[in-house]
């Protein structure tokens, strides 16, 4: 246990700090998921040049071309967070598609897609989930029928964030209808401008349309758009899902949220007394602080595990479950601390933090459900983490009707 950096990494840390101090006037507004602004694209290009994002992606594909160094990546993330500086561009194209293409794409696909994606010129959305295929993603039904050089795609996707502004989609479609569930799926890239695609905003309980539904009617996609082998899309997608799941339950988000909650409780009063002087609220706050710290240190442990090349399995498997729940509990406490003020929303007078606590309280529930529900997470922890037996196979055909 030694949390000091080596001289090399200390130097790197100072470099990053200097960079952030000098460039502060150039910082674009904090990063968003959708289409990048010109300032954000300039910032992204600068970060790539310095190696503060796309660090280990080869230069030929628009990256920085540096050696992978997890600790430097950690230092970058830490210093950017400390300074409150906007990071590089995010979004599913950069975080999920790019790593997949680099691993499994053809040279042409890498050539064509990676660089513009990194630079924010090409925006992607993800077409995985369907209304009937959520937790059970492999039961997806959107079909891609072989028509010579093309596939003809029909069906529907859901939970497609940024679909309304994306240039491209990476999607899972069923190319082999007669193959076993997990075998007949292919991973396809398609322009959102292809005729036959309709995007409808999907409003959630927050009142906002953070997602979309995407409908496909006879959408023609060339066969060359497959990533990996035909029928092996399930394996390709799992390469990518790994990256998504790693992002959910981020302890740094919990840390930021906790700090905001502390400020709130110090600033707000009830009956003239600071909320921090309310013994019940204070106790709940400290209770959550322990959990926040535990998840942050767990994150450091995972980072060290990656550096050592031996990631502790359970410590990793629990991040999404515990992290999302913790974030939700932080928002819940903020709302309780604010009482009736915590109910306010939209543009109400007396609104605190622009309604962020309520929005997060609800959106977190979406995160607890999405990307593998809490129940699926627990199955995974039990089976993969603890080695407990899988659900036994069922006897006959699907149950229906039940015992009602």
């Amino acid at each position, binding site marked *: 246990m030694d949390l000091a950096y080596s001289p090399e990494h200390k130097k790197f840390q100072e470099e990053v700090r200097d960079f952030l101090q000098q460039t502060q006037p150039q910082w674009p507004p904090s990063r968003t998921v959708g289409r990048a602004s010109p300032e954000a694209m300039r910032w992204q290009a600068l970060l790539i040049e310095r190696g503060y994002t796309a660090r280990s992606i080869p230069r030929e594909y628009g990256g920085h071309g540096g050696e992978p160094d997890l600790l430097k990546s950690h230092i970058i993330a830490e210093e950017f967070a400390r300074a409150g500086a906007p990071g590089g561009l995010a979004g599913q194209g950069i975080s999920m598609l790019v790593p997949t293409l680099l691993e499994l794409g053809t040279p042409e696909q890498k050539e064509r897609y990676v660089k513009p994606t990194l630079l924010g010129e090409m925006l992607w959305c993800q077409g995985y*989930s369907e209304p*009937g295929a*959520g*937790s*059970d993603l492999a*039961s997806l039904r959107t079909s891609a029928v072989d028509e010579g050089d093309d596939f003809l795609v029909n069906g529907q996707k*859901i*939970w497609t964030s940024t679909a309304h502004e994306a240039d491209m989609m990476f999607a899972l479609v069923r190319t082999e209808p007669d193959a076993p569930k997990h075998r007949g799926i292919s991973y396809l890239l398609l322009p959102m401008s292809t005729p036959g695609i309709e995007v409808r905003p*999907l*409003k*959630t*309980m927050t*009142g906002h349309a953070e997602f979309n539904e995407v409908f496909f009617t006879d959408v023609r996609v060339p066969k060359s758009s497959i990533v990996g082998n035909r029928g092996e899309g399930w394996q390709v997608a799992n390469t990518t899902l790994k990256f998504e799941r790693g992002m959910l339950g981020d302890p740094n988000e919990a840390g930021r949220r906790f700090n905001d909650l502390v400020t709130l409780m110090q600033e*707000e*009063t*009830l*009956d*003239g*007394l600071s909320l921090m*002087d*309310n013994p*019940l*609220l204070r106790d709940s706050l400290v209770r959550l602080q322990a959990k926040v710290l535990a998840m942050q240190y767990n994150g450091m442990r995972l980072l060290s595990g990656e550096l050592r090349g031996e990631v502790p399995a359970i410590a990793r498997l629990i991040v999404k479950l515990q992290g999302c729940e913790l974030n939700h509990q932080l928002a*819940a406490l903020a*709302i*309780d601390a*604010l*009482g*009736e*003020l*915590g*109910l*306010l*929303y*939209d*543009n*109400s*007078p*007396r609104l605190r933090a622009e309604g962020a606590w*309520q929005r997060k309280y*609800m959106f977190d*529930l*979406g995160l*607890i*459900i*999405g990307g593998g*529900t*809490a*129940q699926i997470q*627990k199955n995974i922890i039990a089976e993969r983490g603890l080695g407990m037996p899988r659900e036994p196979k*069922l006897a006959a055909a*699907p*149950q*229906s009707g*039940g015992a*009602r």
Partner: protein
Amino acid sequence: MDFGLSEQQLSMQESLRRYLQQAAGLEHLRSVVADGPVHDATLWQGLADMGLTGLLVPQAYGGLGLPLMDAVLVQEVLGEFAAPVCFTASAILAPLALALAGSDAQQEKWLPRLVDGSLQVAVCITDAGGSREDAGVTAVNDKLNGRLMFALGAASAELLICSCREGDLYLVHRDAPGLEWTSMRSVDDTRCLWEIKLREVAAELLLPEAGDALAPVSAAGRIALAADTLGAAQTMLDKAVAYSCERQQFDRLIGSFQAVKHMCAEMAAELEPCRALLWYAAYAYDAVPDKRTLLACHAKAHLGEVGTSIARTATEVHGGMGFTDLLGLHYWFKRIGFNRQVLGSPDRLRAQAARVQGWGVQADRLMEQGGGYR
């Protein structure tokens, strides 16, 4: 001895359910609240026509003069439908306050209009939830000055009943000079909330012959919101069970997974005893006045906790669909969230429940000396 509802009460709930099924279904709700918080006047008139707005009004003024229980049962069903009306303010708190502490003239003037549904009243008992941003009004010579936060009631309210810092209740006309109403918007668009500024506003003191009026009005409001949560939580549980018996994943109904079954069983196990607690609180309001405040605090605090937990779990059982707007489940989710905070959060209510039993008074005294923490 009979611990339960009467035939009449059950059939009243049933007819109300039938009415709301056709008059206040999900599509209606969506359209009504599309532009923000509302009081649905048409629906209100429907309730008035069924005699429900006058349940608590004495028979002398055209009402039914029933005990609180019956109004609470109505509120429960309104919660089941997340009905966008301010029943708690105009049909529970207003008639109780007026009947308890209004002068003959005041009663004669206002009570009949509560019965026929033509009068809306806003109610603000700042004390109940505690004062934020120094909200509160001071009464001097029947003039009110200050600021009220989180008044419940329709935009069309003609009257305001409010408590002042000294603990008295006052009646204020909406058109009295010096009043300024600002609409607040909460997550729950099915009820309206207001901030009201008062500058030298003329007000009529509501003074009961014996005792104070604030305590019973607070208690009734809390029991009503607890009932609303009971109804809303029951709806969420029912929807979760129904959804889990329709939705298939992994080639089986999700309701056949033990995890989902246990989530539903836990919801039912938590919620069902709340029903008896609520009934007893409503019964005690009239029959056991000594226990009125205690039970009102318990009912609302406990249903606040159980409701919150069910709102979350029922949403989870619905998976992604529960998170979307498509099924409208969030109307109930938010309704429960609203009821949790308004008229006293659970921890505040528990502190009051302790105080009325004489528990921990030394600590309370010390804290009050230091700044008013209650």
